[in-house]
């Protein structure tokens, strides 16, 4: 059998309108990740102003748009790559990455591979069907794991399927329901093997480097974990422990260091957390999927802020609605438009180096983007941070 990796590179179809070219001749640099520095030695002290809603990308459209976006990755070319599980244009079934340009007033265009990556698939007869989380390395290689087929697919940002790796199984290092993934500082991969209740560390070529985890509800155990992030400050591993309704921080050899959040539906509480991300300040963002929101915590595990969704219909969404007068009339009779702004079952959250927070609003066909408003203070401006700060009144 000829492997997918052996097949000639596929031609990439770029759909870019004249208007788009005129307005955005080159991709923005906003989403480019910073060169990954060695781990820093301390978390900064922040003056927080809060997060500001910036833009909603995507939405459900008859042509283009998203359907079930589950994650985003930052390409070295400055584009955002959105994992879109079910293309919405009748073109193909399956999964693909949609290339999106992030700009304040929001416009997108797509790179559509001729075939979804994986057709006819690693086993030669089925498409990849369950890609979910994704990352992109500095070479422009997108990685995603197929949860059902227990394999990792590599695809270039130009649309070429570069190959697959991974062996299914329940032993350490084997893939079993792989989903959550993130890049380490050296661009090695951390992948959550959900059905093994483990987090494993691999080279980009698939060589197993180590990992940890076992099923349970105890302090250091995991129960169907989903998302994973690496702390950019100290390299510790942060895991969304989905069925225990917690986020846990581990050392790289699997020692439990911190439990973040607690089960529930209230302030700072988690219900079936999915994706997790950590920004350069050490703030942790959790896609609190079961509660239809995203929560942020600081490096000490203190709850900071919740994001319930603030999206308004973007221009393309409005154009779609305006083509149908019935829909216009329907909208004119709706009480409480607030419902439309809210997140629904977000699967993933990612942060870029510009302080943007990208939430895959999976159930509402869009990516909601927030911007972090804060000032990092120099060490000489503040006292060293301490674990417990006594409340004071001014």
């Amino acid at each position, binding site marked *: 059998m000829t492997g997918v990796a052996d097949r000639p590179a596929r031609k990439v179809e770029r759909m870019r309108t004249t208007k788009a070219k005129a307005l955005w001749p080159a991709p923005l640099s906003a989403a480019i990740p910073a060169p990954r520095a060695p781990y820093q030695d301390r978390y900064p002290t922040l003056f927080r102003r809060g997060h500001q809603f910036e833009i909603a990308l995507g*939405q459900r459209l008859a042509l283009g*748009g998203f359907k079930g976006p589950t994650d985003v990755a930052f390409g070295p070319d400055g584009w955002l790559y959105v994992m879109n599980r*079910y293309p919405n244009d009748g073109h193909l079934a399956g999964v693909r990455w949609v290339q999106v340009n992030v700009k304040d007033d929001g416009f997108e265009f797509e790179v559509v591979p001729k075939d979804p990556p994986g057709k006819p698939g690693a086993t030669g007869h089925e498409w990849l069907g369950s890609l979910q989380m994704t990352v992109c390395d500095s070479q422009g290689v997108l990685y995603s794991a197929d949860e059902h087929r227990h394999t990792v697919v590599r695809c270039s940002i130009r649309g070429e399927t570069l190959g697959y790796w991974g062996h299914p199984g329940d032993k350490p290092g084997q893939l079993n329901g792989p989903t959550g993934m993130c890049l380490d500082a050296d661009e090695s991969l951390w992948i959550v093997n959900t059905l093994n209740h483990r987090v494993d560390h691999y080279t980009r070529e698939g060589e197993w480097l180590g990992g940890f985890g076992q099923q349970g509800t105890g302090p250091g155990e995991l129960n169907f974990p989903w998302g994973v992030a690496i702390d950019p400050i100290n390299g510790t591993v942060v895991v969304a422990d989905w*069925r225990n309704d917690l986020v846990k921080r581990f050392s790289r050899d699997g020692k439990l260091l911190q439990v973040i959040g607690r089960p529930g539906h209230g302030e700072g509480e988690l219900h*079936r957390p999915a994706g997790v991300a950590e920004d350069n300040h050490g703030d942790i963002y959790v896609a609190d999927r079961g509660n239809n929101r995203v929560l942020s915590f600081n490096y000490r595990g203190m709850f900071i802020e919740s994001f319930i969704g603030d999206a308004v219909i973007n221009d393309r969404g409005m154009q779609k609605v305006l083509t149908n007068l019935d829909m216009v009339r329907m*909208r004119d009779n709706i009480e409480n438009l607030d419902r*439309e702004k809210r997140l*629904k079952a977000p699967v993933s959250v990612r942060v870029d180096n510009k302080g943007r927070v990208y939430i895959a609003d999976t159930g509402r066909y869009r990516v909601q983007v927030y911007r972090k408003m804060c000032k990092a203070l120099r060490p000489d401006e503040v006292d060293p941070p301490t674990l417990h700060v006594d409340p004071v009144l001014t």
Partner: protein
Amino acid sequence: MTAPIRERRARRAAADDVALIGHLMRRAAFGARAEHLEQLARKSYGAVVDDLVNPERFPPLEEDLLERFHSDQSDDESTGWTATRWSFQMINSPRPLEFKMALFWHGLFATAVSKVTNNPMMRNQYQMLRENGLSDFRTILQRLARDPAMLYWLDQQQNHAAAVNENWGRELLELFSMGRGNYTEDDVKAAARAFTGWTLDQTFPRYPSGYYDVRFVYRPEDHDETPKTFLGRTGNFNGDDIIDIILEQPATAHYLALHLYKFFVSDEPNRDEVEALAQTLTESRFDIRVTLKAMFLSEYFRQARFKRVRSPAEHVIATVRIAGRYTNAWEHGIDGLEDAIGRMGQQLLNPPTVEGWHPGREWIDSAYLIERVNFAADMLGDPSAPGVVAISRRIAGGRSGIEALALVDAVLYEMGALMLSPAAKQAIIENLELVGEVACNPPEVFANTVARVCRTISTAREFQLE
């Protein structure tokens, strides 16, 4: 009586118990393999019935893993997904009668997504039927009259005090409660007027953010407040009054009893038995739980084995349960089940008309039969299917071989105490060229043989019945 005779009689009695409970589980649940039936048979038949009609004694099925491994359905847009979720529940729930009753009520109150076009509305109706299916008919009709999917399906949002739409009022009487011939056209009009102002709120269009829930709302300014005469009674009735008057009619108990009988007992109704069931309904004030319990404990129910053609949903789920498939949420392919059921003529949540499906022999036309046979043969002919593996292990036990006819009997028993005619059994033996004693080793080879027997049994006429 000698010890061997006593022992033989005890074994036969135990087998009879398993067969009877197998019958009960096919009707009140979705079938079970002998392994499970033997556990149930440790209790009395009455105790098993009692457990079935009191599902709250058992924990609800954990469905979070289903959502976890099907995050592509986060938008809640697909009615196919709601049907898939229902399939998973029918396969795995420790409270099967809840889901069986949802199937019954869905058939009686047929509402189709083809018109409603909004999955959250269909999902909510299904959940409403599931949650209230074992309560009483008054509660169920009251909930139904406030169900947005049903209201939209029957144009109730167009039923205004100044411009009456009779669709809901007519179907409430004709198809949902009394049946034709028990009311007049004036009763239909009066019922429709009593329900004016019962409507739903405006929801978001599908684009660009997908479907949202829809709520029932009552608009008093749009309600006809004038007196109405309905089934011989006069007053300023509202919708709930109409339901109360309907429940006072003897025709209502008969109509519901007939449908329950045909769903649970036999495709060919027996007038006396239906009458007895109607009386139970009336005496219990239409308590569904009490009525079902009386029916399951009745002699006519116990004797009614293999007298019903299984509906496609029952056929698919029972087959999957024998095969032991889709017992976990991450097994790939469960979303194909609702499609299979649809190809057999019963697309869940999308019945062809408000009359629902026509059960009984109409499930078996040539095209549907091929689908039914192919599905079951594929599912049960797989020697790696967990259920088939379990069956072959249990039959092999510690023995080295088993005689061909005994093997067929053992497989039938393991599949849920099924029955085949002697001629059909002989045909299976000849078809599979089973000669003399079949070796039980090596296990993989024996599992293949058992799978072939299962597969051939699934093609028999009797396998379409329950």
